[in-house]
């Protein structure tokens, strides 16, 4: 029975286990020295973790993975365009970009939330398509309206025809300004402490927020909307607030991400943001109904560890870096698919368990001593899973 319990736990963390195995196998093949892997991981964690955090609140509110976070990323990019246009330098430049981006993200988040409320039960795919729709709108604004209708001060950032923003924007004025604000070297590894401080503050905020009335409402809505509604919680409003907060966090996360990169692919930088953030949180052991802070850290660490070692392992194994790149992309998408399949499978298994309980024919085991669990024990398990 002990073996059964271990198997049950491994099955629960199947995504993490598969990913970890692949990555650990690739590390020796890649031939990369450990300090360089650690340095890359430290930099990438500081760069991407904030974006991944933006997915926690909608999951908590039972809305699944917010693929609509690309709306926030677009808002952040618009903020950065203005910060670069007016040449506002350093961290104040990032704050200026945030001051422009956050209200835009809040408006877009409210719109997305209203749409998702009308597509209840299909939030993820709706959010994904909403991202495509808003991408078209973003292109209209940045490619045609900026420089013609919306004033753009600097001719250096406009396209050759005189309006629209260049394909690649040089973020020299804000490049790595947050990374370099508190850069500490420990044992040959550079730590961008300011980035980690921001992430730490966000963790504290999320922990605090979960204890507030609104946070509790979100959890209640995520567990059971009908019960939450009966308890007097404004379900639709709570869901919209979750999406607004997620979109704002995505906006700030994209600003942090791009300041580290140092340049911005104006028309493409936001496109894959939602997908990679989703891959990261799922790799960390989260599901579409349950996500924690540790899932974010583990997922970002594992995903980027794979991004670092697999292309090099591909080069060493097959003599072509491109094969490694293909592996990398294939694994990222496969992991999202696997996580979604596992979630659907668990949901069906849970429904079957509940049906069996109703019939008084308990077929599940609690996995500890082989005895059938009491209905209360099972209720506790289910509740834990949906939290």
């Amino acid at each position, binding site marked *: 029975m002990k073996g059964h319990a271990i198997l049950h736990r491994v099955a629960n963390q199947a995504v993490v286990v598969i990913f970890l195995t692949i990555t650990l196998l690739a590390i020796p093949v890649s031939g990369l020295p450990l300090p360089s892997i650690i340095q890359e991981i430290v930099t990438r964690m500081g760069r*991407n973790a904030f974006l991944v955090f933006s997915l926690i609140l909608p999951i908590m509110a039972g809305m699944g993975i917010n693929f609509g976070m690309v709306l926030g990323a677009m808002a952040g990019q618009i903020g950065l365009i203005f910060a670069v246009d*007016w*040449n*506002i*330098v*350093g961290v*104040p*430049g990032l*704050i*200026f970009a945030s*001051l*422009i981006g956050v*209200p835009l993200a809040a408006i877009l988040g409210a719109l997305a939330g209203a749409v998702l409320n009308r597509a209840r039960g299909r939030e993820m795919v709706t959010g994904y398509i909403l991202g495509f729709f808003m991408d078209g709108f973003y*292109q209209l604004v940045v*490619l045609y309206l900026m420089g013609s209708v919306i004033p753009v*001060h*600097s*001719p*250096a950032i406009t*396209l*050759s*025809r*005189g309006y629209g923003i*260049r*394909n690649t924007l040089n973020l020299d*004025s804000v490049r790595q300004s947050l990374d370099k604000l508190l850069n500490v070297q420990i044992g040959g590894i550079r730590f961008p402490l300011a980035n980690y401080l921001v992430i730490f503050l966000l963790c504290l905020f999320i922990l605090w927020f979960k204890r507030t009335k609104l946070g509790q409402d979100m959890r209640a809505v995520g567990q059971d909307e009908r019960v939450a509604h009966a308890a007097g919680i404004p379900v639709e409003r709570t869901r919209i607030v979750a999406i607004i907060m997620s979109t704002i966090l995505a906006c700030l996360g994209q600003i942090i991400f791009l300041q580290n990169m140092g340049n911005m*692919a*104006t*028309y*493409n*930088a936001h*496109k*894959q*943001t939602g997908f*990679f953030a989703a891959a990261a949180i799922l790799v960390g052991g989260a599901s579409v109904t349950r996500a924690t802070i540790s899932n974010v850290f583990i997922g970002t660490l594992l995903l980027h560890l794979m*991004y670092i070692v697999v292309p090099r392992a591909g080069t060493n194994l097959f003599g072509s870096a491109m094969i490694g790149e293909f592996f990398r992309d294939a694994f990222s998408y496969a992991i999202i698919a696997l996580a979604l399949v596992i979630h659907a499978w668990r949901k069906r298994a849970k429904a079957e368990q509940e049906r069996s309980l109703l019939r008084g024919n308990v077929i599940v085991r609690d996995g500890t001593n082989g005895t059938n669990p009491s209905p209360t024990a099972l209720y506790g398990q289910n509740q834990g899973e949906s939290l």
Partner: protein
Amino acid sequence: MNTAASFSVNQGGSQKVFVRRVVIRVFLICAWLLLGVYLFITYRAHTILLDNKGIPEKAISPLSRIQIQIDNQKPIELAPNERDKVMVVGRTHRIIVTEAGQTSPLVEKTINLAIGPDIYLLSVPALVAGSEEALTPFVQEIVRPKEEETPPSESTPF
């Protein structure tokens, strides 16, 4: 009577909450805008082109080897007819011009930059001569490529 009184009290209370909410929101919007304006004015960067060329129309000749220090930045040395550039952040800056090898400055002046222009041209000989037109906005001519740029289709790595 009691019900009517409590209803009016409740109405008054909700009105108070509404007013308080509006006041807080207006305050937050104003603070948001003010912070934006403050950052815009205080942290906007400008490029200053330091020019040590003569101006024949005004009978101003270039200076011999000089050192120019702006704010607390590293001094820049210029030979006659040379140009260099320096980036400054904010509007008000202190400029000290010293002849190379000398300790006492030729001129020490505070300049105020307008927010609009990105680049300024500072004629150091004119500044030393006390001309009012030593600092002028510099209009950059952008040479645009002949081929039209279009957004690329590939995606970027995470």
